């Protein structure tokens, strides 16, 4: 953080970088001439929507072009060495030793068949920097600095034996093993919960500071980048929008696009209160549930959802949010307890429910890619529920599909005959919404619907859901781990931890102290746009309290 003031030597100098990708039959430009100058010890944040070319630039900084892409112009100068013209073996000698890479999903990047420490020591041994024993001792020291529990022992475990946040820190340690000059972090915390994210952020920031390593930090989360970076570069569709130091960028963005990114969290709507003397639309009562042969995943879960209201269910992954949804839909019959719909108990399994009961509760999924059949036309995906429940045919069915496409703000004539893979992430999610609406439900379960989307697109989806709620009087159960979403759209909040409801109530009450300690931990872990937020938070909690010991 303190590197900005000093005049430092340029480590990486990218000029006029152009990268093309091969799609169909021709080369299409992905990066259209980007300049990047990184000094020693400087941390630069690259932000932008997906498809902006962040990761491609990150890979290019190592002189690497992914399969199906090629570097077609510009120069990449790393510490006096021109990477675009260097031979493959010269570039390979840099990677791991002088440039390291931390990937988004540590779980997918570690080889599950080898112990963590063996993978850690691979690079130092390969480059003959250290002997095996030295490298192992060094690894343990790094683990300690990254505040991993049991640093002497944890490396001898296999990747599946440690948690996601720990694995991400182990990967950062691995990147540090050769003390590289430059580390590229490619969305290292995107797949993590807010509470775990803090540990990883703090660990990464400390270690980068301690060894004075330069870093490129790629993310789409502005609040995160504000904590980590000295300078921020905003990208849009392969072009630079603007670059400035973090403080300046946050306080005084110049371009319209940057301003819109900054303003994205502005969507808010007034909180509604429960209708008086009405029965709850959906009422979950004392539900216990377990997957076959496993431990209880849900214990005594109860909450009510009233007509036209949005209930947000929050908690970290593994807290039982999605399992609750599965109990309501009947995919997982509860062990005890029941689910009432308009005061009447629903059969526990969806097999036994009537068509009308099935119609009333619909789901929208997190991953629109897997939620829509790639081999079925949009018209049929949306048309099928209408045909199935209401028996519409021919021209009637077509006009209903057109009406639904209008409702989700997609031009019917353009999308009617297309297939899901031809659409963007946000459009797919809209189709998912249309499919749910086609059944004319009164209640929709939204399972992390915005977490796979870019902020601008997610904002659009939230607005759409809000408009539909007003027009059609829908009730939502909104499953999310993103508290910013909760703040903008929820009327009531249910906080879950380890399969139990720890706190519930109207939103405004929930966001004003005093909180349940777990709610407090969740709330305080949400990154804020203030660049000093992480420092302040760590001071408040005490450094030793970050990590495993931060449990309540």
């Amino acid at each position, binding site marked *: 953080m303190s590197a900005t003031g000093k005049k430092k030597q340029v480590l990486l100098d990218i000029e006029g970088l152009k990268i093309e990708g*091969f799609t169909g039959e021709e080369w299409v430009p992905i990066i259209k001439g980007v300049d990047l100058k990184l000094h020693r010890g400087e941390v630069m944040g690259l932000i932008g929507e997906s498809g902006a070319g962040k990761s491609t630039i990150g890979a290019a900084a190592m002189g690497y072009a992914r*399969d*199906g892409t090629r570097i077609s112009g510009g120069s990449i100068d790393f510490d006096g060495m021109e990477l675009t013209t260097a031979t493959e073996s010269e570039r390979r000698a840099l990677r791991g030793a002088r440039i390291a890479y931390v990937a988004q999903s540590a779980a997918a990047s570690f080889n599950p068949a080898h112990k963590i420490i063996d993978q850690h020591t691979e690079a130092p041994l390969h480059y003959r920097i250290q002997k095996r024993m030295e490298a192992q001792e060094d690894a343990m020291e790094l683990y300690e600095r990254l505040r991993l529990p049991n640093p002497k022992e944890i490396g001898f475990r296999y990747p599946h034996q440690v948690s996601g946040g720990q694995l991400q820190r182990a990967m950062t340690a691995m990147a540090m093993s050769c003390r590289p000059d430059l580390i590229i972090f490619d969305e290292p915390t995107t797949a993590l919960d807010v509470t775990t994210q803090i540990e990883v952020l703090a660990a990464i920031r400390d270690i980068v500071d301690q060894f004075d390593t330069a870093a490129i930090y790629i993310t789409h989360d502005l609040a995160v980048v504000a904590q980590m970076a000295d300078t921020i570069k905003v990208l849009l569709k392969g072009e630079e929008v603007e670059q400035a130091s973090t403080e300046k960028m946050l306080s005084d963005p110049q371009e319209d696009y940057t301003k819109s990114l900054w303003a994205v969290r502005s969507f808010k709507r007034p909180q509604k209160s429960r209708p008086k003397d009405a029965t709850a639309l959906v009422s979950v009562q004392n539900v216990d549930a377990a997957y076959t042969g496993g431990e209880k995943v849900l214990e005594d879960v109860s909450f009510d959802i009233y007509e036209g209201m949005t209930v947000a269910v929050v908690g970290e992954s593994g807290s039982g949010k999605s399992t609750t949804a599965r109990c309501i*839909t*009947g*995919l997982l019959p509860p062990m005890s307890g029941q689910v009432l719909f308009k005061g009447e108990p629903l059969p526990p399994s*969806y097999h036994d*429910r009537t*068509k009308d009961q*099935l119609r009333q509760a*619909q*789901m929208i*999924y997190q*991953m629109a890619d*897997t*939620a*829509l*059949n*790639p*081999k*079925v036309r949009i018209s049929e995906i949306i048309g*099928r*529920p209408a045909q*199935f*429940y209401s028996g519409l045919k021919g021209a009637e069915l077509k006009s209903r599909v057109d009406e639904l496409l209008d409702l989700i703000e997609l031009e019917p004539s353009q999308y009617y005959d297309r297939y899901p893979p031809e659409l963007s992430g946000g459009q797919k999610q809209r189709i998912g919404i249309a*499919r749910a609406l086609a*059944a004319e439900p009164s209640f929709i379960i939204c399972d992390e619907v915005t977490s796979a989307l870019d902020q601008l697109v997610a904002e659009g989806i939230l607005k759409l859901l809000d408009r539909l709620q007003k027009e059609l009087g829908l009730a939502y159960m909104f499953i999310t781990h993103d508290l910013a979403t909760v703040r903008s759209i929820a009327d009531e909040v249910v906080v879950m931890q380890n399969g139990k409801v720890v706190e519930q109530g109207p939103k405004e009450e929930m966001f004003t102290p005093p909180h349940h300690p777990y709610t407090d931990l969740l709330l305080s872990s949400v990154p804020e746009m203030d660049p000093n937020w992480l420092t302040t938070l760590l001071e408040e909690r005490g450094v030793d309290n970050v990590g495993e010991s931060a449990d309540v």
Partner: protein
Amino acid sequence: MSTFVIVYFAFLIGASCLAAYMDRRSVFMPLFSLTLVSFVVGIVGGTSGLWFIAIAAGLLALAAGTSYAFREFLVAILPTNAAKELKTAPLTAAFGLFVMFTYAIAGFFAPWIAPHGETEVIASAFAPADENMLLGADQLGRDMFSRIVYGTRNSVGLALLATSAAFLLGASAGLYAAVRGGWMDQFLGRAADVIMSIPSLIFALLMLAIFGPKIIVIIIAVAIIFSPRVFRLVRSVAGNVVVMDYIEAAKLRGEKRGYLIRKEILPNSTAPLIAEFGLEFCFVFLLVAGLSFLGLGIQPPAADWGSMVRENATLISFGDITPLIPAAAIALLTVAVNFVVDWMLFRSSGLKE
């Protein structure tokens, strides 16, 4: 030095130089390699060796040319989507398609193509080829060429029917097991294991010995033998599709199993299934030919490639290649189908880049 040798080498060297001058590396390398090989063979084997090499190279070039032209032809007549896929097909796949096309024509129009009847005796036994008989006569004096053309119908038709039956059986069981899950999945899986544990040829021989060598028995026996392999593939492919969210959405909508299988799962598993069909077809074809060779397949007097090899086998000792012609027909089709399947597997496995 005969004129042939001089012309041959002059042509090769001239073409190589031209290719090198035009900077066409992919043309130059095979051409000049051929020149070098011809040079060595010419020294060792003389003019006859050179003739052999020249004819082999000519045939290869002819096959490549035909495949290329056939591919361009298909690209021109097919709708844009299919044409786009075909454009990237390797020449071997186009060759396979061409061979399959030829066999299909021969099978469909056998009575018009064949100059003589399937069972018509027109000459003495083992009569050599003349202007009336392209490939000579077989052990009863029937026209060999006509019988090979009719054999396409019988052998390939039978193999196609048997493979389709195996697919119907295996695919429906596999899809059902994947959608249903639970004990039914286990039961069908173990049943498949039991069938696979019986050696296929012995099982077929047993069935044919019990029920007699009838066409329907062959089809059912082969279908039973090959269905477990199809079952395993379909079940694993469908198993990956069943866990998708869109299947869950359809289930929650209250859709029946039939709809799930037809509309949601099947369209997402066709690519590996088609490739598997081609592969299984080769095995079935070889098994049926083997059965015919043993005298348990298609019964005389119907023409069948497997039994034709056996009936004319005595000619081998006289150095005649007649019995090898039906064998070559079998080999060519199997290779052709494999070429096409290779291309399809390559596409469906996503190794394109």
